[in-house]
């Protein structure tokens, strides 16, 4: 019998012919006909028309024929449910067959037919099969319960199959146990709360016993189930580890990895001081390394997992560098993975070896691989300081090859090396400049332009070089345009005399001829900076940049911890948590590592990633480390030093109007969302240079330009009061949570400037130094206006008081509560995070007094649903005292009326972001010495009212 006839196309007569053959008397002919039908079905042809004829062949004692008919049924029953009923009797009969293979086949097939009417008939046979004497039948029945559950979960519960399934965990046959575990695990996933897989030391013991006896695939089900168990204590964890360890030498890589997964998880619970911990660690390496001689597909999966493991526990593989060297016949995807791991394992000890390898790779044929190899050399330089010099010279050698893509990659990484080691390798700039013409990729062009701008004073013809780029400005990609703009501004600040024309040219190109808002905005900022205060511009543009970190390529620690839990799942191949790629709700349970028990917690080195337990204690952990780095990496616009001065008198260019007017309307009233858009645009970088509106002077320091004086309405005796209300200091960061650093503080506003008054106390036993502070994005863009200045290291038990000036030009993100501020403080020990609430009145600006007419119009204009009412009880002040006290905090009384013996005050205030709040304050004397105040607030952004009220309350009660 040959094949070709199975595969002829379905002609009209063919179905007819098959029909005849299926109804033939001869068994052999029947079987061949069914085979033909199956062959057609498999390649996707529709043979459903033959349903009754095929079902007729079901009654046979030929097992092979029966299997084929069953296969047909599984495929077409759903589309022909009524016809499928015809098969039920045979199924039920087959479940009683003396041959266990037939019993199992029948129950297996019935479970795969997703037709309700058939499912009903399944229950009785299934119940019998679950208790069958033959293990082959029982193991098939166990899986069938999961199938039935998938079709009709309620039925499974009602029929009590779950209990029977649980009993099978104690079955004498290990394969039955394994399938029962698999089925229960699957069912438990859809009932997260139920206690189906009641894992306790006894049942775990049973599973571990079955583990030794069942097939390799069964071992995987059991190991995967074990991984979900949470041992009581470290002793139990250790004993499970001991019994799982032998699986590491199994020939099946899936068994090995499932075992590794269990071990990695339970190791978290073991104390690092334990001898056993070290032994176990040593045992993990060989099986992982062995996988690297398997098929390329397995190697790839192994490498992706190893990549995670070396980030979490580099010690496991630190001596195995050689196995990750690339073989020339590895597929490219294996090569790239190996390269990545080589960098992760690179250290001072092996760097020479690694560099020699990388240099060889850079001469290979495969372009993608060569590029990655060149990048890797740069990453080595940044990671291992001692190797930087050799890396640079290697890169120079590679540039000499003049191979286009090698040169471009080399320039990109050399830029990073400059960022990491400033003023060390600038001698190579001349060589780089020689290759200017060959650069045709945006990233390389941008890198080269950055280098020229950054080191303009050392490059004689920097202006010529940049000018040559400028010719095709509009054809460049945005990346290059932005770099070019910044570079030319840098050049101008360094060599102002010769380059005036150039800078004007680029500014007009960027601001007038470009449609790209990022480019335009950056252009305006530079323009305004340069025209108002070149000195400040110099400080901003040429500010010293923070060094880049070597760990930029690492997976963020919290994500890494999560991924480690998913070792041996697809997440470990994609390097994304399942929530990032699983659609729908099925089975996405956030996993975390178990907390370590025992006493070694404090002995853990600080660089160990924080365990999930710690993270859970501090829900207010603000920036994922990545965000912080992102901010630090922001290339051009150094840290937000201070709001760009806005001394109106010296502004000459027309552009300013555009800025002031345009953005003003953007930032007014309810446009918070818009504002954060502007702030967050990528061209602005992480520091979010939201251009300041007219409110900006408020954020400036005390020395105000004379021209601004008239902006302030100084009537009403502001001067008589000592400034706005300042709350007493409270502890923001207890020493316990910050390795001995205690921070307490408060906020104040004095003559237009906001201050964060801090007291840092060192309660640790070591000296603290290198303090730095950073804010997370917040609702009003609060940001430090100067670095945190702690002049001398802080000795143990010493305190220092610092007044940190703030501005409101930082990035904006709406917080909940609105006045929440998340702060990161760094010192030589670690980075600490805390969050605090600031009183809103620090944001009330000095020019918040509205014209009377304006007030009336605005009050009418704001819809009534925006009005909010509050009560302030038991205030000891009369109307005048209230008015003057509030004025101290920039809440201005516009009018006062007396209605039926009650004083009414009409007040206005304005927030730093331009939001006006109008208030009506009714003062009702309640008893001789106290008054009750009724406050009505109207504002276009009603969400601030609550916080304005809190400010009123705080000011008036103190």
């Amino acid at each position, binding site marked *: 019998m040959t*094949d070709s006839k*199975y*595969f002829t196309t379905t002609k009209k007569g063919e179905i007819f012919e098959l029909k005849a053959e299926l109804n033939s008397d001869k068994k052999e002919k029947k079987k061949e006909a069914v085979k033909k039908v*199956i*062959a057609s079905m*498999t*390649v*996707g042809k529709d043979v459903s028309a033959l349903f009754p004829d095929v079902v007729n062949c079901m009654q046979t004692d030929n097992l*092979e024929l029966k*299997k084929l008919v069953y*296969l047909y049924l599984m495929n077409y029953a*759903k589309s022909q449910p009524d016809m499928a009923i015809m098969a039920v009797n045979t199924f039920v009969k087959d479940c009683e067959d003396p041959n266990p293979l037939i019993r199992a086949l029948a129950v*297996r097939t019935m*479970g*795969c037919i997703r037709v309700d009417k058939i499912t009903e008939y399944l229950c009785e046979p299934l119940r019998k099969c679950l208790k069958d004497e033959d293990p082959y039948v029982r*193991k098939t029945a166990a*899986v*069938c319960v999961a199938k039935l559950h*998938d079709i009709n979960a309620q039925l499974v519960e009602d029929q009590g199959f779950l209990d029977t399934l649980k009993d099978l965990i104690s079955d004498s046959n290990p*394969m039955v146990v394994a*399938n029962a575990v698999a089925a229960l695990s699957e069912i438990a996933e859809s009932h997260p709360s139920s206690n189906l897989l009641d894992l306790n030391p006894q049942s775990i013991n049973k599973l571990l016993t079955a583990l030794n006896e069942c*097939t390799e*695939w069964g071992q*995987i089900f059991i190991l*995967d189930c074990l991984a979900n168990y949470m041992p009581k204590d470290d002793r139990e964890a250790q004993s499970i580890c001991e019994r799982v360890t032998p699986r590491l030498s199994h*020939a*099946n*890589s*899936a068994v090995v990895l*499932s075992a590794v997964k269990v071990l990695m998880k339970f190791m978290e619970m073991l104390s690092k001081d334990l001898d056993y911990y070290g032994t176990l660690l040593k045992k993990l390496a*060989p099986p992982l390394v062995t996988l690297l*001689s398997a*098929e390329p*597909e*397995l190697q*790839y*999966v*192994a490498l992706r997992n190893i990549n995670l493991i070396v980030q979490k526990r580099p010690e496991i593989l630190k001596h195995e560098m*050689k196995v990750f*060297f690339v*073989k*020339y*016949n590895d597929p*490219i*995807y294996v090569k*790239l993975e190996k390269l990545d791991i080589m960098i992760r394992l690179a250290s001072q000890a092996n760097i020479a070896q690694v560099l020699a390898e990388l240099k*060889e790779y850079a*001469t*290979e*044929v495969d372009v993608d691989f060569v590029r990655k190899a060149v990048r890797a050399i740069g990453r080595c330089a940044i990671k291992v300081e001692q190797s930087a010099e050799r890396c640079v010279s290697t890169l120079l050698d590679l540039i*000499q*090859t*003049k191979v286009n893509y090698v040169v471009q990659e080399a320039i990109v990484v050399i830029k990073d090396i400059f960022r990491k080691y400033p003023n060390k390798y600038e001698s190579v700039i001349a060589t780089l400049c020689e290759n200017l013409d060959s650069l045709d990729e945006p990233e390389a062009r941008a890198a080269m332009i950055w280098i020229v701008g950054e080191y303009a004073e050392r490059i004689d013809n920097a202006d010529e070089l940049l000018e040559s780029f400028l010719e095709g400005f509009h054809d460049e990609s945005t990346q290059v345009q932005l770099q070019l703009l910044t570079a030319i501004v840098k050049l101008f600040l360094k060599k102002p005399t010769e380059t005036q024309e150039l800078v004007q040219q680029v500014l007009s190109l960027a601001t007038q001829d470009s449609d790209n808002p990022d480019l335009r905005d950056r252009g305006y900022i530079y323009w305004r900076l340069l025209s108002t205060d070149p000195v400040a511009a110099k400080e901003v543009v040429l500010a010293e940049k923070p060094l880049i970190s070597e760990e930029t390529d690492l997976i963020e620690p919290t994500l890494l911890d999560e991924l480690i839990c998913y070792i*041996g*799942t*697809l997440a470990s191949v*994609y390097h994304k948590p*399942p929530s990032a*790629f699983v659609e729908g709700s099925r*089975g996405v349970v956030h996993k975390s590592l178990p907390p370590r028990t025992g006493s070694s917690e404090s002995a853990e080195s600080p660089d160990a990633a924080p365990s999930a337990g710690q993270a859970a204690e501090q829900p207010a952990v603000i920036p994922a480390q990545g965000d912080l780095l992102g901010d630090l990496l922001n290339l051009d616009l150094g840290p937000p030093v201070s709001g760009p001065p806005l001394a109106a008198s010296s502004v000459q260019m027309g552009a300013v109007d555009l800025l002031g007017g345009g953005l003003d309307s953007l930032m007014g009233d309810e446009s918070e969302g818009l504002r954060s858009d502007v702030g967050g645009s990528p061209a602005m970088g992480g520091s979010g240079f939201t251009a300041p509106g007219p409110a900006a002077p408020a954020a400036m320091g005390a020395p105000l330009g004379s021209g601004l004086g008239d902006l302030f309405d100084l009537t009403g005796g502001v001067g008589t009061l000592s400034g706005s209300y300042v709350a007493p200091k409270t502890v923001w960061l207890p020493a316990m949570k910050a390795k001995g650093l205690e921070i307490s503080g408060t906020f104040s506003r004095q003559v237009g400037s906001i201050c964060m008054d801090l007291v840092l106390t060192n309660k640790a036993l070591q000296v603290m130094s290198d303090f730095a502070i950073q804010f997370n994005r917040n609702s009003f863009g609060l940001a430090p206006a100067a670095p945190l200045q702690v002049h001398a290291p802080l000795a143990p038990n010493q305190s220092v008081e610092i007044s940190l000036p703030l501005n409101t030009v930082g990035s904006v993100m709406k917080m909940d509560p609105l006045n929440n501020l998340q702060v990161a403080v760094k010192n030589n020990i670690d980075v600490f995070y805390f969050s605090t609430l600031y009183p809103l009145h620090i944001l009330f600006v000095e020019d918040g007094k509205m014209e009377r007419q304006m007030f009336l119009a605005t009050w009418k204009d704001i819809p009534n649903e925006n009005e909010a009412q509050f009560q302030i009880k038991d205030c000891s002040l009369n109307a005048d005292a209230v008015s003057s006290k509030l004025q101290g905090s920039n809440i201005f009384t516009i009018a006062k009326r007396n209605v039926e013996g009650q004083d009414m005050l009409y007040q206005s205030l304005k927030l730093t972001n331009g939001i006006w709040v109008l208030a009506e304050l009714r003062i009702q004397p309640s008893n001789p010495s106290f008054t009750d105040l009724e406050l009505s607030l109207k504002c276009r952004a009603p969400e601030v009212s609550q916080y304005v009220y809190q400010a009123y309350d705080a000011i008036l009660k103190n």
Partner: protein
Amino acid sequence: MISQLFILSSKGDRLVYRNFRGDGGDDVTDAFYRAVTSLPGDQAPVFMAREGQHFVHVRHGGLYVGATTTADTSPFVLVEFLNRLVTLLREHCGTLSEKSVSVNVALVQELLGEMVDFGYVQTTATEVLRSATHGEPETTKAFSLLDLRSVGLFGAETQQSRVAPGSVTNRPVLPPRGEQGGRREVFVDVVERLTVVIAANGTPLKVDVQGEIRLKSFVPGACELRMGLTEELSVGTEEQCGYGRLPLAAVAFHSSVDLEEFEQERVLRVTPGPGEVTLMRYQLAEDVAVPLPFRLLPSVEWEPAGRLRIHLKLRCDLPPKNHAINVVLQLPLPREASSLAQELSSPEQTAELQGGGRSLRWAIPRCQGGAQLGAVFRVQLPPTPPLGLGPAALTFELPALTVSGLRLRWLRLSAPPGAPPGPPQRWVRHLTHSDSYVVRL
């Protein structure tokens, strides 16, 4: 777990398809083929997430053997299972090709039914499957004894088998039912893979030998098999590695191997059913000096007008009675070469430019031990400053030789009671092939 499983031809035609969990549409094979053919070059094809589905596949014999799966599945289970499936299909259908699979669709479906239930892998053991399946394989080509001239090793992806698939072992392991006869044969192969990196000055930087002993039995029923290995074998650091010892860094045995006599006698005992099994995998200790089969002595000169003259001398350091076959040297060039002039020492050798002129390929069909082959190439390159060539990569096969020296001394079979008279045929083969043999210039 596995949701759907499929085997596609190299053109994307569906040969086998099975939906284990009743979810997902029937068009997955099309979606898969679209995804795999449109994949960018720098992305790994093994796992792909497309249109809410996760695809995994391996490629064998031009076929895509793939599956769709859910996110919480172990990728190792999937890849390992697909590889096992390929082996089993080879065992049952003889070879794995578009034709052999499509002829045996019914058998493949029957096997899949036993191997996977509701997406859970149940078994991949040949004996178990044998007892639970009833289909008969259809061979695509009658087996002929005369076909021995192209003896290739069964699973080994040797250069030879890629060129001319040996057909001795390319037949179903299981004889047709009812025929007691069949041809009763046992093949034992010792295959080593050599990974070498030689520095520009000729010193070996890295020499890595991985080997395995594989057994493929066509004998129905169980028969006990004993084989004696080289006695100088020593494992790990358990004993002093004296002169003439053969120290192995790591050894792993298949679970069916009886090691009772291994410690003392270096004898492996195994009672295999029909089918293929890897009895032992080993890795040679790193510090063993293995005689390297090839030396390359290059000299490179720049001639005026961008011509590069490359003189290569390839010395084969094998014992004179051995030889290497299918030797191919690949030399990456620094630039796209536009033309090649060659002087080769014998007519059966060939040389050509590959990859759009980015590399030079020199092929030598056969090279006797002790021979020294010379070749001169002149390539025309775009004018640029001089820079390094290479590294050169060699691929070759060394028949009847294991570089480590590990050999099978003897192989004995004791037939089970009731077996037909006469011992089964025994074949023992040794082979080394290059995994990655790189010479830096």
